């Protein structure tokens, strides 16, 4: 008897196969493995039946606050937006879920056409010419965009604007450390006419939710022969001018807000778009339209000579497996929303955030410091932020992010369409009471 329901071979099947192979026992197949190192002791936790497995993981999940959360105001790179039933049902289809990278296009038109839809809709949302089939996550997309810009400009100086959050900067450092790339702060950029840079990285809405004047920054770096790379929040593009209308050369984003659960930070999807002239420097997979022998429209992976399996050490990136299934979620999400839906989600998030912020500002001890923000804002307070969050947690509400520095206590809230007007009012009431 086998220990696993995932193995169909019976003892008899095994015996027959070994006979055909001409081996007496399984061990006879392992002659190349050093004898002393064969069949080591393996001390693992005991195996669980399916039912026990569910019980165990339910128990683990209950040790997370999220199991009882009724609403969340937490953002900072991962956002709670409503996930439509269409998205949830389509990702369960095994034909999408359990297929491999579409190296055999004739047997993968489903994955390929969905990928083409994804590229099309992201390009439209960003108003950029081209988009690849997806990167690992937002910060890695931004880091690879910086490397890409340096290759295009043959200039290895990357200028970092203060709008870029610390976590993204850390990823950029890990990606560029051994590549002779110099990272400098925007404030240290020289005013000298003749100085040139590879690129300027800016995030808008920025790390505190405020809208940056990207166009102005674009002009500035273009005058120094560098590219502008904008990292953005894709939902905001339902309301705000997209990168393609801001003179942006390469635009990236964390795609998670478009129909993907926050899931403790992953799996997410990095969005990477650019002007068409730069496609030969794009990392990652790209799906293109073509025809088959009978001239029927069809889809295939394309421009593969950029990639590791062909170009090896000279590839534009080492990325191989990326995030196709998350791309499906994003594609179904955007198709479900349509132009009016995405606009509605953006506007609802905007207005609810501004309402919440202005009401909080009215409370003694709370001061709104953000001005031109989208859906995320900062409140300065005398109260210890952990105390604020504790009070909210008691009411099963997930509070904001503690961004206090040595000068003052600060809390950052994100608001989306998932924070109902009732919850917002309730939260205002709770925070209006004395906290200690």
């Amino acid at each position, binding site marked *: 008897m086998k220990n696993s329901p995932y193995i169909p071979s019976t003892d008899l099947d095994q015996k027959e196969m070994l006979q055909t192979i001409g081996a007496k026992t399984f061990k006879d197949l392992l002659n190349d493995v050093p004898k002393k190192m064969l069949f080591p002791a393996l001390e693992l936790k005991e195996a669980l039946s399916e039912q026990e497995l569910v019980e165990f993981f339910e128990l683990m999940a209950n040790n997370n606050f999220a199991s009882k959360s009724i609403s969340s105001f937490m953002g900072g790179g991962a956002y709670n937006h409503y996930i439509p039933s269409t998205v949830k049902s389509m990702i369960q289809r095994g*034909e999408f879920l*359990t297929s491999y990278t579409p190296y055999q296009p004739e047997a993968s038109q489903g994955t390929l056409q969905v990928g083409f839809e994804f590229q099309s809709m992201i390009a439209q949302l960003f108003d950029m010419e081209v988009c690849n089939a997806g990167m690992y996550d937002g910060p890695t997309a931004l880091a690879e965009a910086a490397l890409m810009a340096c290759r295009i400009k043959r200039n290895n100086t990357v200028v970092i604007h203060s709008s870029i959050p610390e976590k993204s900067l850390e990823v950029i450092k890990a990606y560029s450390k051994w590549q002779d790339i110099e990272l400098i702060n925007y404030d240290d950029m020289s005013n000298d006419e003749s100085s040139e840079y590879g690129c300027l990285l800016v995030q808008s809405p920025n790390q505190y939710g405020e809208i940056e004047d990207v166009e102005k920054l674009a002009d500035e770096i273009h005058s120094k022969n560098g590219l502008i790379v904008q990292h953005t929040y894709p939902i905001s593009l339902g309301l705000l001018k997209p990168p393609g209308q801001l003179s942006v050369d390469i635009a990236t984003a964390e795609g998670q807000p478009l129909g993907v659960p926050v899931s403790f930070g992953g799996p997410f999807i990095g969005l990477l778009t650019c002007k068409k002239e730069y496609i030969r420097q794009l990392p990652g997979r790209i799906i293109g339209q073509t025809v088959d022998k009978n001239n029927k429209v069809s889809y295939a992976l394309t421009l593969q000579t950029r990639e590791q399996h062909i170009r090896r050490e000279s590839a534009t990136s080492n990325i191989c497996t990326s995030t196709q299934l998350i791309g499906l979620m994003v594609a179904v999400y955007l198709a479900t929303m349509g132009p009016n839906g995405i606009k509605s989600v953006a506007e609802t998030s905007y207005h609810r955030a501004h309402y919440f912020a202005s009401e909080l500002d009215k409370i003694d001890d709370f001061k709104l410091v953000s001005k031109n923000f989208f859906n995320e804002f900062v409140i300065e307070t005398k109260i210890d932020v952990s105390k604020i969050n504790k009070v909210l947690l008691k009411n099963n509400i997930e509070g904001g992010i503690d961004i206090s520095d040595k000068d003052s206590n600060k809390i950052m809230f994100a608001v989306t369409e998932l924070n109902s*007007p009732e919850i917002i009012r309730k939260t205002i009431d709770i925070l209006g009471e004395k906290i200690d």
Partner: protein
Amino acid sequence: MINKEQTLLMNQSKKGRKAINLPSIGVPETSLPDSKFLRKDIELPEVAQLDLIRYFTNLSSLNYSIDTNFYPLGSCTMKYNPKINEQISAIKGFASSHPNQSDENIQGNLEIMYDLQNELGEITGLPAVSLAPLAGAQGEYAGLLIAREYHNHNNQKNRNIALIPDSAHGTNPASASMAGLDAVTIKTTNEGDIDLEDLKNKVNENVCVLMLTLPSTLGLFEPNILEITKIIHDNGGLVYADGANLNALLGITKFGELGIDICHSNLHKTFSTPHGGGGPGSGPVMVAKFLEKYLPYPHIKKDGGKFIQYKPEFSVGRLNGFYGSFGILVRAYAYIRSLGAEGLREISENAIINANYIQERLKEHYELTSSRRCMHETVLSASKQKEDGVKAIDIAKKLLDEGFHAPTMYFPLIVEEALMIEPTESESKETIDKFITAMIKISELSKTNPDEITNAPLNLPVERLDEAQAARNPVLAWEKK
């Protein structure tokens, strides 16, 4: 198979249709930002909900997948992806768990990660584990960063060479480049083993790391592994194992005991998480204890009764926005817990028997690269068939027509007309026998009627594509007619 063309959404779109109702704003409105920041219009499809569902459902039916077809794609370990793991990863307490939440409110997540770190450490014999890497390639990159930082720390900045066998996967040299290492190619023998003479000639005081795939990309266990790791260590270098092929080694042998210092493993292969048509994946990196202090962060440890995240002392840094591919980690841990030590060993045992059975039964029909026993996969060559005008790609396409996904073709690069077959433990003898019958039939057909193979596929939604046109004149997004 449905063979009607699926019209792109933008071409189905009609103003006034929608697929969802959304809540109204519901609070007093604020003025909008300055108009120079505002968008005018957005071009996205407008479709009704049923049309949307039908579109994506019909598209899904154009795919081959593990759930519908035998998928013997070598180096990809297309095993069954248990449904229970999907259900578990969707539990609210995981799926809606926010990554910026503080440690005391995410103890369940941290405990799972801590336990998974330990289980993977025990399975590979490399006890210090980071779950951060988002796929195999990122795991490789993390491993190389660790190797570089280690040498750096020991005042050996000069070590800037990665030795990489010519049979390696493309991500190996690509990752080496990203880590600023010069990729120096090591020859392999006809059987894909490291050429020891070549290795000895190329090893020197500038070698940072040897990147070795074990079992090799030919599906064979490197018989000189102990000698190889000794050569590298004697020269002060580290040994990295690409563990994409770990499905052959569960409970069979441990990397750590073979002298390997660093490895990665693809959870989306050996540990059954679904491949999703090309990700998301997860590629944890496992290292020997002396390298623990270089691991990426956040890393999870246990402190008293609590699980906490921390940054190892000489950490190579942060590889992504948060903790890694958490939803994938949950699935992989559920898989490991559903099997236990004995169950995992059986996985490898059956994967190896199935591959050897295929190799044995096909060796008279296809050229075999080695007469040795294989591990979890076997690499055949279509060189005989090529004499009749039938190439590996033709055989692959004909197999698609017969209802099987194709093996990996033209990899590893050192084998002419390579067909790399990995059946995994998930397949029954009956399924495997049908596949063998189809392979034999194709081999016979190559002598009698090669055109029938070179014209394939004929039974799929599309016939062979003009891939050259796709690259020559790239159409990468919907365009208005």
